[in-house]
């Protein structure tokens, strides 16, 4: 039915099967849209947030997907500026995943603020001292860059590409992509850092507060490193998931292993500094606030196991796995390390968001706990479903994977 729209020389599943898949995604989309409408109509009173937990699942998701989407800017930087040509095999997917992550994050942010109608105030009345201002500006600008990077991929759609103007436009956009990759790398580095800086500047929250360099707390640099330590491998995991779902080979293993090596190298650098940072925080900083390491944790829900899982099991272990060639070259081990890596970074974002504000600092105050409710989960599901939808449509109709034809002969 839609065969004429398929990329040149490539097979796709039947339209009926694809329609069923879209129907499955639509269930989550509709449920999420319903939750979103309820939130916009009644306000965030319908969520599980409260005065103690002003930040919760949404901010965690925001930070996590922006870190996971870092594959776009870092792969673009390596492909277009450092000229690592092998990454051309996966750069289109990295861009699409980045676009999904950033546009999804912006949607979540619009739901998260109490006055969505004032969302433009961030540009109109910016506080130049706030890390969040930097985040708002950089995320918006970088999302525009990602749209510019995504457009030529759309223009290469078989039928569109036959129109001479579009053909030339796409060609010329490709020629100038190094410029956008450079702008993207600059913007993304800054807002990944600013997201870390958002927590590092919280002088009243000892779990997150850090000294630093000039105006940037150490968390600024740690967030940049951790994002580039997980973004590339997340792109590999998405490619592999797409291979499993479609039953076709899309990216050669050599490219995947290279992405694993890149992520592993950055993760190793990150974990090295993260361990030093954590030790200095617990040993030097916390005592100045009159608090102990033990007081930062509570029961199982906010227990130490979270931090050890984040730094050791999902940080140090995957870092070692990814930088060891014999482990990295084993597909199962590469994917396992990738999953651990991504879980570790998501856990890091969760701890900086929720654990930070869960700790009762007033000696006469008590620990409070937070659990997201249906509205937060449904809208998070909406973002995931939106990602699947964009990826499904892009895969079916756009030439994303340059190696696909040769690998599936």
């Amino acid at each position, binding site marked *: 039915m839609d065969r004429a729209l398929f990329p040149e020389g490539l097979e796709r599943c039947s339209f009926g099967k694809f329609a069923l898949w879209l129907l499955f995604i639509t269930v989550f989309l509709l449920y999420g849209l319903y939750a979103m409408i309820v939130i916009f109509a009644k*306000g*965030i*009173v319908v969520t599980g*947030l*409260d*005065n*103690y937990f*002003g*930040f919760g699942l949404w901010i965690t998701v925001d930070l996590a997907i922006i870190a996971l989407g870092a594959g776009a800017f870092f792969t673009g930087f390596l492909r277009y500026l450092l000229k690592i040509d092998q990454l051309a095999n996966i750069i289109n997917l990295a861009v699409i995943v980045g676009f999904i992550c950033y546009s999804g994050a912006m949607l979540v942010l619009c739901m*998260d*603020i*109490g*006055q969505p109608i*004032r*969302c433009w*105030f*961030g540009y109109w*009345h*910016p*506080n130049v*001292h*706030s*890390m*969040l*201002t930097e985040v*708002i500006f950089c995320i918006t600008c970088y999302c525009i860059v990602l749209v510019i990077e995504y457009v030529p991929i759309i223009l290469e759609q078989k039928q569109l590409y036959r129109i001479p103007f579009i053909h030339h436009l796409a060609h010329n956009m490709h020629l100038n992509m190094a410029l956008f990759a450079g702008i993207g790398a600059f913007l993304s580095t800054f807002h990944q850092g600013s997201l870390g*800086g*958002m927590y*590092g*500047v*919280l*002088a*009243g*929250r*000892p779990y997150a*507060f*850090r*000294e*630093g360099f*000039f*105006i*940037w*707390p150490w968390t600024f640099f740690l967030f940049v490193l951790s994002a580039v330590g997980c973004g590339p491998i997340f792109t590999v995991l998405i490619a592999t998931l797409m291979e499993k779902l479609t039953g076709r080979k899309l990216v050669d293993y050599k490219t995947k292993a290279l992405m694993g090596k890149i992520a592993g190298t950055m993760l190793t650098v990150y974990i090295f500094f993260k361990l030093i940072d954590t030790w200095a925080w617990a040993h030097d*900083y*916390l*005592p*100045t*606030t*009159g*608090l*102990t390491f033990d*007081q930062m944790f509570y029961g199982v829900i906010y227990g130490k196991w979270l931090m050890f899982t984040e730094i050791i099991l999902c940080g140090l272990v995957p870092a070692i796995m990814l930088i060891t060639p014999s482990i990295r070259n084993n597909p199962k081990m590469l994917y396992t390390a990738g999953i651990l890596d991504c879980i570790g970074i998501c856990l890091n974002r969760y701890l900086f968001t929720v654990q*930070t*504000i869960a700790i009762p*600092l*007033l*000696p*006469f*105050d008590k620990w*409070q706990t937070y659990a997201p409710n249906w509205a937060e989960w449904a809208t998070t599901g909406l973002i995931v479903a939106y990602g699947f939808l964009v990826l499904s449509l892009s895969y079916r109709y756009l030439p994303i994977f340059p190696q696909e034809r040769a690998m599936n002969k």
Partner: protein
Amino acid sequence: MSGHAFKEFKINWGMVIDLDKCTGCGACMTACQVENNIAPMVDASNKMRTLSWMLVFELSNGKPAPEAEVAYLPRPCMQCGHPACVPVCPVVATDKNEEGGIVSQIYPRCIGCRYCMAACPYHARYFNWEDPIFPKGMEKALSPDTSTRPRGVVEKCNFCHTRLMHAKDKARQDGGDPEALAEGAYIPACVEVCPTGAITFGDLKNPEHKVHQLSKSKNAFRLLEKLGLKPQVYYMSNREWVRKLGDNYAAGGKPGAEKKHS
């Protein structure tokens, strides 16, 4: 680390709350709600969502009877000298920029991101989870000076700022200096209503105001002083266990020790 330079002011409006005089009656909380047009909630059973600019905490020495003792600690906004909330606001909806050092909150500017709430270790900032609904007839008793706030913005104690405006106006009308108000010319509603006189209010920098001396008393302390936020609200108590509950000492250190970091 924020790069935000804080202003020094000639006047520092502040409080000294004598915890040995506070009976925990809650009159300050009620006066605050009335003065600032805080609507009663339809369902206030979830205390994590109520609006309590002034909140009274119960403190306990943790000992069994007959040594058991309690104290009550009223907690307004600390109007910190180095507020954690001000530099983080992305839209300058909160500022510490006016003579007197009161941390402002600009409701029509606030986007409700709640970053300031995450920044404040005293939980002195509150989010409007719902639009205010005043029971029939109550609208006639609202203060004409204080604007009501819509759903989705953050609010907090501002030392009844409209009273400061009125006091300044009166000083001008009387031919006085609005920047040199006499003690008692401006006091927040909670101070005025306290039946035991536990809250003293004035200019912390003015030797003619009682708070100036009281804040220097050996029994005076501030909450979480080690974090370096320099609150303009002081507490005092003759009881050491009460003073010790003002900060954390688990890792050693003495009450009132200065923090190490900048």
